[in-house]
């Protein structure tokens, strides 16, 4: 059937084209219809390679569907649908077009059956998404977007280099298991790693996402890192190195998230933390672990989107996003508050919420394979997530001290988008079998066994208890330091604590280093440009022909000399 051959990205690109030339209700209607039509279409698509052609000496497969890519395809459609509804009120054509193209590129990347197609969409992801950052039209966002773009394009170039080596080593470009042997494997690994926000390469994410527009961040949080997770799951399952990288990713952002004031940046850190769980799952590589990674990616797109949407709603309605400026919003934004709490509950893996049914798969897999230390790190990370995303986000935005801001609930389209996401979070939490049936492997995993539910409830119950207790004692800040739980508002009240000092020192050193480097770079460039101007000045004024002839003589002499000594 000819319909099958239409790759999912095509509809989105067509949608972007239409969105560029239409306005108002018509555009809104088309933008909402595109993901629905595309999702219905995708639902009918069987597994297999649906589009391929020869290019140079290789067989390219721009459209290959199997369980793994279909799973990501579905969730990208859901994410695009929700985010589009969320951004219906936006009148900025550039943002709407960029968002459609970006969603399409994400879909193109997960259905790419060869490295070249993957590379094309990899770069398209970068070029389309940067407009969502620039759309805020501030100096800050322009600079942050530029940094983001440079890193993303660099990742693409490394991917291309890897693909070239891969083609030279294996004579094929098909995108399957790659593994870490050979230079090609490492190059591609690094390219994926940059996009996946591996530690040390994660700064683009926390730097750029909070600078994007309210709606842009919702799109951004769904696609880029998940494409990278997909790529890792396809190319490097069972690579042990990933377990350690992933474990580091789950833990280190917690410290940053705790002391961060910008609530969207807190979410950006927690995004890295969640991606860490997935990376660990891919690294373990057993059927259960891969299932865990993939299903967690699926859930994360939805609940992280929900959290970003609720914070976006706060930013949209109040114009503020710093935890210290907010508080007490539950009185006037009750619906947003409830929806945000659903997202927080999901990310913290409460039973009956979506995070619960996927996160523990990875942890169980870690235990099964004997990675006890990793399991402990993941446990710590889970508590950390609950701490900064589950409690800090809703608490500082909607409760805490009354900031005096009296903003109402956001426009209906935003509420509807959040409602859909929240509904999905709960639905998946209650009826996980629907999600499990989409997974690449059939492991018969049941999240609702007694130990799991009990252990998780205990963890959460005691955390919640501690939180309630602290909240009641909140008016006696000096005594709170004795508690074992490091709630970040303690740091703010008991400002400055040792930890923050340490980080501020690190940051200062980091800033100084970076500035020193930038100054050197500027000097270097200035020197080069002066040099260049000097040279061209030399050419254009002072005995030009003579200097050229001199070069001719030099080259001739060299050639003659070299051929005679031979």
């Amino acid at each position: 059937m000819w319909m099958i051959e239409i790759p999912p990205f095509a509809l989105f690109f067509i949608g972007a084209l239409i969105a560029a030339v239409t306005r108002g209700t018509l555009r809104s209607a088309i933008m909402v219809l595109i993901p629905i039509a595309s999702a219905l279409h995708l639902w009918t698509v069987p597994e297999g390679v649906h589009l391929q052609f020869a290019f140079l000496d290789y067989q390219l497969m721009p459209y290959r569907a199997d369980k793994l890519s279909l799973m990501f395809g579905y969730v990208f459609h859901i994410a695009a649908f929700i985010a589009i509804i969320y951004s219906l009120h936006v009148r900025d054509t550039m943002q709407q077009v960029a968002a459609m193209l970006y969603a399409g590129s994400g879909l193109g990347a997960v259905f790419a059956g060869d490295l070249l197609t993957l590379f094309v969409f990899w770069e398209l992801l970068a070029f389309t998404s940067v407009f969502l950052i620039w759309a805020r039209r501030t100096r800050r966002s322009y600079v942050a977007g530029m940094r983001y773009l440079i890193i993303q394009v660099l990742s693409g170039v490394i991917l291309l280099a890897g693909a070239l080596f891969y083609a030279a080593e294996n004579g094929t470009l098909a995108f399957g298991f790659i593994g870490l042997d050979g230079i090609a494997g490492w190059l591609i690994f690094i390219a994926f790693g940059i996009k996946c926000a591996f530690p040390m390469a994660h700064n683009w994410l926390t730097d750029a996402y909070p600078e994007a527009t309210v709606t842009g961040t919702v799109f951004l949080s769904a696609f880029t890192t998940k494409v990278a997770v997909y790529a890792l799951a396809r190319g490097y399952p069972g690579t042990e190195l990933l377990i350690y990288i992933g474990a580091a990713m789950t833990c280190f952002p917690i410290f940053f998230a705790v002391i961060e004031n910008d609530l969207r940046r807190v979410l950006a850190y927690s995004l890295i933390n969640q991606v860490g769980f997935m990376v660990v799952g891919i690294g373990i590589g057993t059927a259960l672990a891969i299932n865990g990674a993939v299903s967690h990616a699926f859930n994360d797109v939805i609940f992280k989107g929900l959290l970003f949407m609720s914070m976006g709603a706060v930013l949209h309605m109040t114009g503020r996003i710093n935890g210290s400026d907010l508080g007490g919003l539950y009185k006037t934004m009750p619906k947003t508050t409830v929806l945000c709490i659903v997202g927080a509950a999901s990310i913290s893996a409460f039973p009956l919420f979506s995070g619960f049914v996927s996160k523990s798969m990875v942890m169980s897999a870690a235990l099964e394979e004997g990675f006890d230390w990793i399991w402990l790190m993941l446990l710590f990370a889970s508590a950390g997530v609950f701490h900064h995303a589950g409690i800090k986000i809703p608490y500082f935005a909607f409760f805490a001290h009354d900031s005096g801001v009296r903003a109402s609930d956001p426009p209906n389209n935003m509420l509807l988008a959040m409602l859909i996401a929240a509904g999905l979070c709960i639905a998946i939490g209650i009826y996980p079998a629907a999600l499990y049936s989409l997974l690449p492997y059939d492991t018969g995993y049941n999240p609702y066994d007694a130990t799991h539910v009990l252990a998780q409830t205990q963890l959460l119950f005691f955390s919640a208890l501690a939180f309630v207790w602290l909240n009641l004692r909140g008016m006696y800040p000096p005594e709170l330091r004795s508690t074992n739980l490091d709630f970040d508002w303690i740091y703010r009240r008991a400002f400055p604590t040792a930890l923050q000092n340490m980080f501020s020192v690190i940051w200062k050193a980091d800033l100084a280093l970076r500035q020193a480097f930038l100054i050197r770079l500027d000097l270097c460039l200035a020197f080069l440009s002066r040099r260049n101007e000097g040279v061209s000045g030399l050419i254009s004024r002072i005995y030009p022909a003579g200097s050229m002839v001199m070069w001719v003589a030099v080259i001739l002499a060299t050639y003659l000399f070299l051929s005679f000594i031979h």
Partner: protein
Amino acid sequence: MLAHLPILQVIVPMMAAPLCLFLTRPRLVWLFALIVSGLAFLISCILLQQVMTSGAIIYELGGWDAPWGIEYRIDQLSAFLLLIISAVSTVVLFAAHTSIQKEIPVDRHTLFYILYLLSLAGMLGIVATGDAFNVFVFLEISSLSAYALIALGKDRRALWAAYQYLIMGTIGATFILIGIGLIYQMTGTLNMNDLSMRLPEVAHTRTVFTAFAFIIVGVCLKLALFPLHLWLPNAYAYAPSIITAFLAATATKVAIYLLIRFTFSVFGLSFSFTTLPLQILFVVLGLSGIFAASTAAIYQKNVKHLFAYSSIAQIGYMIVGFSVSTTTGLMATLLHLFNHALMKSALFLALAAVMYRIGGVQLSQFQGLGRQMPLTMAAIVIGGLSLIGVPLTVGFVSKWYLILAVIENGWWPVAVLILLGSLLAVVYVWRIVETAYFKPPLAGSEAIKEAPLSFLVPIWVLVIANIYFGIDTRLSIQVTQVAAQSLFGVGPP
């Protein structure tokens, strides 16, 4: 008739040139030149088709046997080059009439077309002939007319740039002549095929070494290999815009052809790459060319200068491909010849359109052009993407093969450097994009309109060719593969 095609290819434009004098009206002259160039293109298509099906064509001039008489020899390589030259010439000529209205005084229009046709004939002759001395003659024909064409530029510096080019070009041609003279002295023949058989007997004499060095330096000067490139930026920047497009896409390509012809066919592979450490020399010079010229391009204020420097960088890529001296490497060079001709002619034609509308191509004048001349600027963007080597454009195909060739040879640091060089291209192309699309239009520039159709049609023909041959690579890959294999003496002769 069909049997005489090799000579017709050269003689038609050459004879047409003086005929232009009889046509009085510039418009008629333009039409005539366009038809002649189109005819040359048609002939080259038929020739390529013949060569691809039945191998090299040998044509003896005046019926004299080869070593004594002059012989025209069209093999896959020369047929490919003939196609590139005549195709670019025809497409570029299409816009010539409009473009020179504002750049050249009307009384010199006829002169312009005469010189143009002579230059075309000279370049076709270099590629078609199988005689070493004939090469020199045609080289002089094409070069002399090119000097005069450049001097026609409206900027007063054009005269001086042409004079510089004249000196350097003459030195280059003289070097080539000295080299040819020396090998003639040693072998007593000027026929290339004959030379290739006789040279091995005297290969170990100093005279032949010297001849080789002279020819290589002469050719390198002509192809503007770094650091012998100094004449090129000004010559391109101050020439009439049409001539820039024409020369940028053809002149250096012909020089690359000569390099390949002399090293592979005349002196032979083993001699060429063992007498001189040519591999390492060319890799170093090619890479330094890529980096020096790309960096220089970033700092240019005149967009013609910018793309001229980028041309030098692109020549660096071709030289690196050449120095790999494997079939894949040579293929990459030949592909890039073709592809670079497509992108640079598109880019320089678009610049000609900008020149026509706003009278200059300083980068600062590009502010806001993205809205005022959307089609022209879109062409520059696509051409720029092709220059960078983005997939779906021709630039990607040749870079791909180049890097593949380099990796096959195990030179992976070179592969990394080539990729880094592409990043420099991103920077200089981005400067244009940023100025044209992200800066507000200059005050008083509201009246600027999109370029006329006589520009847009050829520009977009080239731009679409840039994309088409980036996706459907059958023609370019097949021809270059056969050409490269036949030069290495494998596959069909």
